């Protein structure tokens, strides 16, 4: 019996067997290893911090209350989870969130069916679309993750590096390929970037996350290149394809605009240049001070010109990799085709007299560059869609289009290639399943991060407020001034900007204020950001508003804008001209918080019934854990050794010996990574370097046993675990265990001496 069988259910065994031939070998290995890690963690063989980063890199996040504390409106109560942990201060049994990457937001009907099933079986029946085109499922139990990963893998989806200090989902403008204004379709480039950097050695040792976005159109919005660590905008030069290449953007508490690294990088150069950026970030980026660890800070600290020079030097030193340009031969492999004949191509679409339908067409239907076809935005309130709706939408998509659905950063779905002739029937089908809401890309389409609903960092209820605003604005939407209707509202539960509040016309982020001894939920208001021009302008903080006063404030500000704006004056320009002081002055009568005794509703947040508190806020995992490649390498050694022991118990002596030896090599290699992250995995090279750098220098010597454990490794290298009888293999397993433990001890000693990264070079 393997360790997996000790801990997995009949269903888990079923999925493992049924899908084993349908998953890529790499993903199969990743999931098998994660399953082993779960078993090892339960046996106490992996520490909390290391396991936390391991699961984060598989997309398995913590969730609010996983520290076992919840404020019930009167007092903080303990949730009686058993004493077992899956991260620092994170209870094992507490449900968590699973983030699932969808490169460039691509989604097929079969994948939609699968998401419906996964949400139903493992989550709460809700798929949540994120502001970076991923899908999140909440209330997940970690034991279900391997089955979920296998089912996703069978349909070509990986969750690897969906969280943690890694390259996150590679996003792209969802209109790319069908946009009338873009330079060219960036989909194949985004896919190539995703495939190239997934698990790439140069992208495994970051101090924080790293986000990449593509846009086909400089003036558009949904690529949002300006707010990303690395961003690329399509460009043609002398008849050749390439990109404007940006580095160092990012939102967070203090937003940074991306720097133009190069105004043209040819298509065959984008992957090596991205690799060089990753290499520089991994080696020179901050690792200890989490709040200064994003690449935007490295660029700021080095100075952009010095940073650029360093990246170009790193690029020049990169050994040639044939995959850099290999994908260009097959650029059309992701091209989409329609399934129905084109419509008449007349645009704008003529009104039918059905006010409800016509309004939906106006707000939710976009012209494609391909005449006769439209891209339809399916508006999802708060980014949520139920399992049954997802399943039904998949069936509708099969009826009208081929697999050409994309997730949208404004938390909606975009159904592309709908024939203009089919729009009335398509609308009727959406209406039958409650997905016909109008108001996409308008003030009604409020974006909100999970906030206090499920996020450990949430301060105020972003989703509660978004729901309330949507309800109130919907009542007025049909007779709104177009200039007001086209505004965007984005709400984050804290300053971390997951909803992109800095680039909203009207943005909010959660804060709390003390009012006469009571803590009152508030939002800081940020005005005048721009979603257009790839998130080109950041808004300015105006002031704190009590949560319950926000709807009144939005009504007042939009009214002022509608009344006082000059012809063609956009909101950003109006805010600048009017000034922060005047705006706040005009809100004074609305924003005053009534005393507790007069109106207790101000002291309860939207979407909640408890009196407000920030006492159950936890520590976030957005930053991941600082875990080195050596940590991961030593964990791999443990896992290999553990597998060897299980093989021995099952009578497979040959495999046991081989696994044990591999464990020793992995442990030695892990230590060598402290000085050289590119260290080969060739056992002979590992042995040679280990001997020179750790044995001959005495660094590996145990304070009491001296070089004894290194000798075990030297002996093992001669037989490599093979040709041993049962008794000798048993002894060898013990020696291998002692060597791996000695490697852990050596690493601990070195860490204490703070010698771990001093010799790293670019």
């Amino acid at each position: 019996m393997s360790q997996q069988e000790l801990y997995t259910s009949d269903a888990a065994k079923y999925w493992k067997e049924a899908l084993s031939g349908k998953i890529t070998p790499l993903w199969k290995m990743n999931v098998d290893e994660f399953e082993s890690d779960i078993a090892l963690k339960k046996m106490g063989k992996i520490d909390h911090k290391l396991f936390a980063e391991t699961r984060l890199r598989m997309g398995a996040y913590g969730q609010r209350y996983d520290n076992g504390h919840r404020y019930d409106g009167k007092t903080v109560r303990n949730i009686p989870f058993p004493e077992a942990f899956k991260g620092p201060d994170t209870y094992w049994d507490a449900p968590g969130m699973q983030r699932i990457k969808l490169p460039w937001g691509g989604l097929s009907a079969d994948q939609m069916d699968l998401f419906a099933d996964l949400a139903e079986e493992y989550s709460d029946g809700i798929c949540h679309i994120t502001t970076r085109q991923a899908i999140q499922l909440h209330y997940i139990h970690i034991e279900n993750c391997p089955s979920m990963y296998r089912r996703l893998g069978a349909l070509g989806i990986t969750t690897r590096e969906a969280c943690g200090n890694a390259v996150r989902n590679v996003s792209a403008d969802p209109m790319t390929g069908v946009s009338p204004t873009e330079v060219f379709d960036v989909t194949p480039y985004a896919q190539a970037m995703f495939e190239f950097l997934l698990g790439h050695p140069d992208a495994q040792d970051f101090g924080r996350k790293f986000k990449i976005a593509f846009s086909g159109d400089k003036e558009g919005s949904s690529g949002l290149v300006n707010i990303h660590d690395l961003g690329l905008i399509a460009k043609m030069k002398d008849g050749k394809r390439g990109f404007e290449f940006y580095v160092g953007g990012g939102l967070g508490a203090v937003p940074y605009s991306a720097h133009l690294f190069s105004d043209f990088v040819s298509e065959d150069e984008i992957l090596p240049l991205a690799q060089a950026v990753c290499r520089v970030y991994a080696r020179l980026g901050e690792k200890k001070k989490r709040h200064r660890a994003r690449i935007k800070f490295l660029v700021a600290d080095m100075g952009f010109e010095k940073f650029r020079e360093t990246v170009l030097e790193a690029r020049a030193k990169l050994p040639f990799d044939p995959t850099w340009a290999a994908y260009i031969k097959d650029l059309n492999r992701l091209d989409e085709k329609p399934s129905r004949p084109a419509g008449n191509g007349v645009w704008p679409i003529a009104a039918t007299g059905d006010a409800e339908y016509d309004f939906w067409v106006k707000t939710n239907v976009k012209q494609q560059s391909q005449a006769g076809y439209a891209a339809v935005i399916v508006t999802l309130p708060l980014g949520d869609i139920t399992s049954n709706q997802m399943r039904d939408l998949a069936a509708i998509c099969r009826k009208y289009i081929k697999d050409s659905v994309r997730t949208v950063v404004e938390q909606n779905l975009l159904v592309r290639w709908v024939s203009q002739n089919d729009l009335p029937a398509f609308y009727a089908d959406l209406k039958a399943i409650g997905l016909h809401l109008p108001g996409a890309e308008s003030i009604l389409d409020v974006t909100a991060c999970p906030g206090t609903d499920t996020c450990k960092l949430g301060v105020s209820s972003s989703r509660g407020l978004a729901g309330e605003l949507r309800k109130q604005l919907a009542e007025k939407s049909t007779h709104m001034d177009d200039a007001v209707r086209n505004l965007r509202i984005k709400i984050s539960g804290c300053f971390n900007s997951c909803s992109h509040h800095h680039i909203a016309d009207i943005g909010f982020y959660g804060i709390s204020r003390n009012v006469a001894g009571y803590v009152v939920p508030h939002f800081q208001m940020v005005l005048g950001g721009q979603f257009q021009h790839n998130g080109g302008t950041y808004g300015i903080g105006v002031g704190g508003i009590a949560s319950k006063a926000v709807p009144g404030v939005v009504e007042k500000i939009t009214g002022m804008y509608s009344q006082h704006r000059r012809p063609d004056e956009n909101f950003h320009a109006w805010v600048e001209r009017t000034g922060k002081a005047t705006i706040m002055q005009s809100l004074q009568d609305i924003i005053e918080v009534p005393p507790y005794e007069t109106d207790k509703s101000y002291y309860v947040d939207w979407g909640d019934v408890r009196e407000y508190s920030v006492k159950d806020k936890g520590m976030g995992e957005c930053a991941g854990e600082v875990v080195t490649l050596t940590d991961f390498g030593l964990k791999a050694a443990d896992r290999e050794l553990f597998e060897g022991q299980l093989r021995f118990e099952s009578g497979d002596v040959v495999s046991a010996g081989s696994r044990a030896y591999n464990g020793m090599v992995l442990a030695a290699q892990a230590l060598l990574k402290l000085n050289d992250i590119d260290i080969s995995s060739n056992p002979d090279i590992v042995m040679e370097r280990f001997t020179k750098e750790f044995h001959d220098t005495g660094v590996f010597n145990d304070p009491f046993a001296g070089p004894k454990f290194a000798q075990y490794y030297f002996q093992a290298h001669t037989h490599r675990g093979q040709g041993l009888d049962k008794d000798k293999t048993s002894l060898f397993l013990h020696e291998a265990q002692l060597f791996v433990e000695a490697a852990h001890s050596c690493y601990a000693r070195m860490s204490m001496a703070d010698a771990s990264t001093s010799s790293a070079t670019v």
Partner: protein
Amino acid sequence: MNLQNIQWKIHLADGSAPNVHEWFKALGTWIPDSPEVFVDVADYSHVQDGPVIFLSGHNVAYSLDGTGRRLGLLYERRQPAEGSNAEKLNESFTSTLQHAALLEADGTFKNKPKFLVGDVKFFVNNRGIAPNKDATFATLKPELEALLNKVYGAGAYTLTREPDTRQRFTVHVKAKAAVSVAEALKKLA
């Protein structure tokens, strides 16, 4: 089959349209007061054909559920259960009824919810062990009938499997005569 991930949904009587705010409050009070490990309540009243108010828990979750466009109390076993299938069925249905009884008596509601114990759905929310097929139905039917005979009496109800194979394994239980929550609990005791 080692039955896991059992769900029961007891539909609400027509006319008892819920006040979601009251449901949110009522389910929230179970968190500190129950021996179950409950975690939090989520409001999904903005979506259709799914959960409306969801009480998350470690072993068990409960929700006001609107899946299939019909409202009801949904019991959901989320962790592996031990014992024979008969024991699991009995325990899970009893728990569902006990919590329905709590809600029917809850002073939070201005219009108290009324549950139709004769109009129930049984699910196995696990496609790995129980695909929604006739074979699964044939396997589970005797054990399900053994339980339901106690509640409604043999031959006093019908069982209909949901024909859409995309759905989780679903059986609609329809009793010929009305049964109250209290009566059902008494018969299962």
